[in-house]
């Protein structure tokens, strides 16, 4: 049956495709959003089991979105992994400060990402 749901907020199509294909062989259910605003709306409407949030997003940054979700009682308890950019030093600090459960520095290996997801929300 349907497993745990993961909401992936990312504007780059290929990155979404990698995660989609990475999770295809697992029980995780993937939902996708393309920008910060859409991500927040999707998360609030049907709170997922985990949110994977890119930091650089159109319309609303990943950090702002994370902050907003943390302040919303419906999503306050949902774990969020923020995908930071290696280039911007201090992103890890900002991510944690915004309320991220964990962060993963880009470029990440799909293997490492899957391991991180499994660590936070174990597969059914």
């Amino acid at each position, binding site marked *: 049956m349907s497993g745990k749901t993961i909401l992936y907020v990312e504007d780059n199509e*290929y990155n979404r495709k990698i995660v989609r294909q990475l999770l295809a062989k697992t029980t995780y259910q993937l939902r996708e959003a393309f920008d910060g605003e859409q991500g927040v709306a999707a998360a609030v409407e049907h709170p997922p089991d985990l949110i994977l949030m890119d930091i650089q997003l159109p319309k609303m940054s990943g950090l702002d979105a994370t902050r907003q979700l943390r302040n919303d009682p419906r999503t306050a308890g949902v774990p969020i992994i923020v995908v930071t950019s290696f280039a911007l030093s201090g992103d890890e600090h900002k991510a944690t400060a915004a309320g991220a459960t964990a962060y993963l520095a880009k470029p990440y290996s799909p293997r490492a990402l899957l391991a991180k997801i499994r660590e936070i929300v174990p597969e059914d």
Partner: protein
Amino acid sequence: MPFDRTDPLAAFLLRSPLGILVRGVARIRTSVQHKLLAAFLLVTLLFIVMGAFGVYTHRRVSQQTDWLDEAHRRVDLSHQLQHSLAMQMHLTGMALIVRDETALANILRENNRFNDTLARIEEQAPDAERQIIQKIRAGQEEAMTVVADIANLVRDDKVDAATNLQLTREDPLYRSIDGLVHVVVQHEDVRMATLRASIDGANRRALIVVSSFAVASVALALIGGFVISWAFILPVRAADTFLTNLAASRFSGTVEVPNRDEFGDLAARLNETARELARLDADQRLTADTLRAVNVRLEHASRAKSEFLANMSHELRTPLNAILGFTEMILDELYGPVPSELKEPLADIQTNGAHLLRLINDVLDLSKIEAGRMELALGDYAVEDVVATVRASLRSIAEDKGLELVTDVEPDLPIAHGDAKRLTQCLLNLVGNALKFTHEGRVVVGVERLGDQLRYRVSDTGIGIPPEKLDEVFDQFRQVDTTTTRDFGGTGLGLSITKKFVDMHGGRVWVESELGKGSTFYFTIPLQVERAVRT
């Protein structure tokens, strides 16, 4: 407006009548030296005139005193005449009684003395007295004839006749002479009184004149000194105020003095200097404004470059990330079994993609550091964790090359403060390099505490660095030669970035090496880094 309005003393002085004099002296077109000389000469002249008048007065008084003395002497002599007359009368009486030649001789002697005295009076007598003296001499000569007659009568024993002659002729004659002498005495008395009055008058006049001269000289000397010194002090004060303004960068003022001497020239030079300074100041301000504008433009350009690089590297990395991600998933056989002949080329794609990613990251780091936009994320960290991360990251590479990777961290190091991520990056660069350039042997990663400093050390048994290249290894895009890049890979930026991060931590990095035997890279950083050092 001469002199400075803000100088209250000068303003007060210039409103007084003395101010006109001061200005007048200032306006005289001659040198300061000549003005001073003229003032001193004027005062000196006054004192000379005063001295000359004193000498003249003194001489006059002393002449009159001499005249007074002479008058005195003549009065004395006149008294002697009177005495002599009395003696002659007395001796004549005596001769009549004693009828002795000696008495007669005494009269003659007395007569001689009388004549001598009379001659001495006549020597210095004024003309008015000479006539009286002539009369006295005539009287005396007549008296002598009478005395001679009396003497003859006495010798002839005609005493009665002699006595009669004495009473009728000699006595009245002597009395008349005595009267004349008395007139001379009175004359001299009057003259003495006049002289005394004249001397008194002269003395009084001299006192008044000399005092007036003295007062006038002193007053003139004081006024002259005051005027001339203020004619010099005022321009100096004006110059002082002016220079104070100049020193405070107020170049717009001018110093205006009425002086037509060296001070006038000085004021003109000062005004020229001020104009020149004002011009230079304006130039300098203009240049500074231009530079500021250029600086702002440069800053914008630099920021634009930095932002461009940051954006560009993000844009470059996003597809690279996808390439690496897909390759890894293919190799992980997420899409199904991978034919064995494809495994090697896929691994090569992965290796080269990873290298390209490192290059992009390094270029971005360096450009951010150079744009001054690299920040350190300072926090507490454990040195052991840093070394453990490096060891974990590079252990497989060391094992693949058959090298020993040894860690040698001083036990019980305290918790340090700094940017652990950047320090890890530095150590990764150094250890990565060491592994790259070492073919056999081992690489040691050591950390020691030296006072309030930490010393990181990475030594290898690799190819070493020629001594002449030791200074260059931390320069950008430097490897010992271009062939090393080809043989060993690497971006050539790792050591530059390491040096920059160590500098930002307030530390120092250096290398010791022996060609063919190996190299040891060191860097020291403070145990507690409180804030990043801007380089």
